[in-house]
């Protein structure tokens, strides 16, 4: 019989993640579970996870402006930052997937039918892997805002969707990145579903003049912090060993 060391991930502090039951976002009404989740002690199933990285990324996948014959319409931007864990460690060679609306606020998606224009030179999907410092970089177009039917005269602030795996099932995260100074924040129930104002602020990227490239593209920086480890590993007997 051998021992298995399971080093779990710290529970997120209250207020960071939105409550699933957030009445301001109407679609939660029939989809938010009514019961509280059952707490499961960290085991190997949860602390392991798929380690996707550069092997799933093609050479132009990070540049959403070069995926078609011509240049997409809109403001060219660089979106970059680091993927870290809560202890400040870089998350290396991890897959980062993004998707977004075009400059008109229209997604290339059959269920998006509002009268914003489609752009034949923009798909709005990208992926990259972080480097040894946890650094990632995309080139894309500033997405437009778009209307939705959640409430009277509802508009989503401009945003880019992000999907991350980290190093474990416990760290899996899907989120949205916003842009500084957007006048639509006040009426957006999705951003405002986050109880902690400081956490909401962290989803807003920072305009980054140092990385803005002269006569080419504005830069926005956005660091992503996944859960960190708990202080003490759990020593478990391995009955299979």
């Amino acid at each position, binding site marked *: 019989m051998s021992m298995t060391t399971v080093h779990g991930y710290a529970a997120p502090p209250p207020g960071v993640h939105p409550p699933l039951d957030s009445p301001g976002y109407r679609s939660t009404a029939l989809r938010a579970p009514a019961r509280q989740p059952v707490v499961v002690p960290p*085991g190997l199933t949860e602390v*392991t996870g*798929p380690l*996707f990285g550069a092997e799933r990324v093609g050479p132009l996948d990070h540049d959403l402006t070069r995926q078609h014959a011509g240049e997409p319409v809109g403001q060219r931007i660089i979106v970059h930052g680091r993927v870290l864990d809560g202890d400040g460690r870089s998350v290396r060679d991890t897959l980062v997937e993004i998707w977004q609306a075009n400059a008109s606020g229209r997604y290339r998606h059959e269920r*998006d039918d509002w009268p914003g224009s489609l752009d034949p030179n923009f798909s709005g999907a*990208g992926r990259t892997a972080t480097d040894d410092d946890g650094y990632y970089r995309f080139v894309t177009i500033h997405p437009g805002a778009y209307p939705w039917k959640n409430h009277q005269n509802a508009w989503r602030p401009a945003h880019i969707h992000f999907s991350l795996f980290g190093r474990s099932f416990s760290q*899996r995260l*899907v989120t949205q990145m916003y842009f500084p100074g957007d006048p639509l924040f006040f009426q957006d129930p999705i951003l405002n579903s986050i109880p902690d104002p400081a956490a909401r602020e962290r989803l807003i990227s920072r305009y980054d003049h140092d990385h803005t490239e002269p006569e080419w593209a504005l830069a926005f920086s956005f660091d992503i912090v996944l859960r960190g480890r708990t202080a003490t590993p759990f020593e478990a*007997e391995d009955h299979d060993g």
Partner: protein
Amino acid sequence: MADRLGLTSSQTVGPFFHIELPWPDGADVVPEGTTGAFWIRGRVIDGAGDPIPDALVETWQADVDGGFEHPDDQRPRGERTAGFRGFGRCPTDDAGRWAVRTLKPGVVPSADGSPQAPHLAVSVFARGLLDRVVTRLYFGDETEANAADPLLRGLSDAERETLIAAPTDDGYEFDVHLQGADETVFLAV
């Protein structure tokens, strides 16, 4: 211990994730042609009993030897499956249906070292879910192992039923009910 850096919050996957997240090989936890492979098929259902056509289901599991291809699993490995990825990803269709092709995982010890019944970790993302929900899938034909499983033993009969996939002609069936009388037991992991 509090995290040193402020964590990034979850936001909904929204209705338009299909332009990036589904992969051509998403359902292939194991490659086509793998000996013994079967399908896990299911639906994602809302609180009104209606299928959810814009959800994304992801699965994660051990190989047939109970091992994970991961630095946190330092145990000696047994038989490994060629092309085994452990991870599956499938969007739901208009009828709320998803499927992944896989194998039954081996035994993985729980946090206290006791053996667990074969299981998959399952995440569900959807428009209207501001954070993923997490559950586990157990196999209906593992009666003895399920009866001894530490997580299942802590649940009522009705709760247990929501985590158990029923055998079918080509594998197993597993529905996720986000809400309602049959609400699936969700987990904080």
